[in-house]
């Protein structure tokens, strides 16, 4: 269990952007794993199973506890801005290379966490979990076009955030 705890926690926290929620979900994942301990103990794919369960549990959590209130708390019209083409962004490679590894990692984590959930979740699923666009759309119950646009917006926002905050000291 200890061998996988960082992987499970990382998978979840990058989706939720919230440490305490991630800890709660990670706990549920390990309790689920405990129920299947006899099988997982000898399975070579235990890590993959844990990552899949962690990803699905987090998506379920986000759907259950946030979209439930969307009707009331986020009445802005997503559809109106859905197909607005995002502006292209330059990649701040040079800036990142100028930072040391720890600063760079903290900056990227911080910028990722600051993304809106609608952009962060598909972006993380695509880049970290290597999930195809179609699967992301299916899991998040949104259209394929929206997945592509949200991911692209997330990339643009991430690149901009890195460019903007790179010169400032990184907040832990």
């Amino acid at each position, binding site marked *: *269990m*200890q061998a996988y*705890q*960082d*992987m*499970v*926690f*990382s998978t979840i*926290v*990058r989706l939720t952007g919230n*440490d305490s929620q991630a*800890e709660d979900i*990670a*706990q549920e994942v*390990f*309790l689920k794993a*405990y129920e299947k301990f006899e099988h997982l103990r000898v399975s070579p794919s235990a890590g993959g199973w844990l990552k899949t369960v962690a990803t699905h549990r987090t998506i379920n959590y986000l759907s259950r506890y946030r979209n439930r*209130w969307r*009707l*009331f*708390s986020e009445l802005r019209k997503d559809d109106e801005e859905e197909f607005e083409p995002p502006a*292209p*962004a*330059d*990649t701040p*490679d040079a800036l*990142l290379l100028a930072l040391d590894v720890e600063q*760079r*990692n903290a900056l*990227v*984590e911080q910028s*990722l966490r600051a993304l809106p959930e609608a952009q962060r979740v598909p*972006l*993380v699923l695509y*880049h*970290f979990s290597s999930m195809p666009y179609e699967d992301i759309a299916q899991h998040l119950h949104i259209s394929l076009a929206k997945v592509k646009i949200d991911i*692209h917006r997330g*990339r*643009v926002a*991430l*690149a901009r955030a*890195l460019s903007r905050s790179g010169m400032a000291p990184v907040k832990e």
Partner: protein
Amino acid sequence: MDTANRDKSLEQFVDRTLHGLPLRKAPEALMSHVLTAIEKGAAAAWWQRTFHNWPAVAKCVFLFVATGLATLAVYAFALVSLRFDFSSLRLDSTSAAALFKTLTTLQSSFIGSLPPLWIYGALAAVVVVYVTALAIGAIAYRTLYASR
């Protein structure tokens, strides 16, 4: 650089940047919380666990008793409030099929004997209660949580 190349370059940059991140370290307390939850679960009596984890015998007994109580409740309700004619029904066998048939007959007779206004009224009451609960929840959320 045209837009397509710029987008491709951006995708590659993000992919490279995110894949370059090390794993986040899990909180120190995570494992101890998991172990505590496992110990607590193991120490709990069977009736304190989820229904899924109950012993098979207990599940069967519970379902049998619950079905019996539900049937009795329906009989009692029909007897008291509608003066239902039970002479049209007869439990002539204890087999599951006969019991199911009897219950189905009872259900259709019972629903058929209800005035339509009662049914519409009950449905309207369910909808009103659901919408009210949802509205109260939304107001509570916006007042107590979202405004923070």
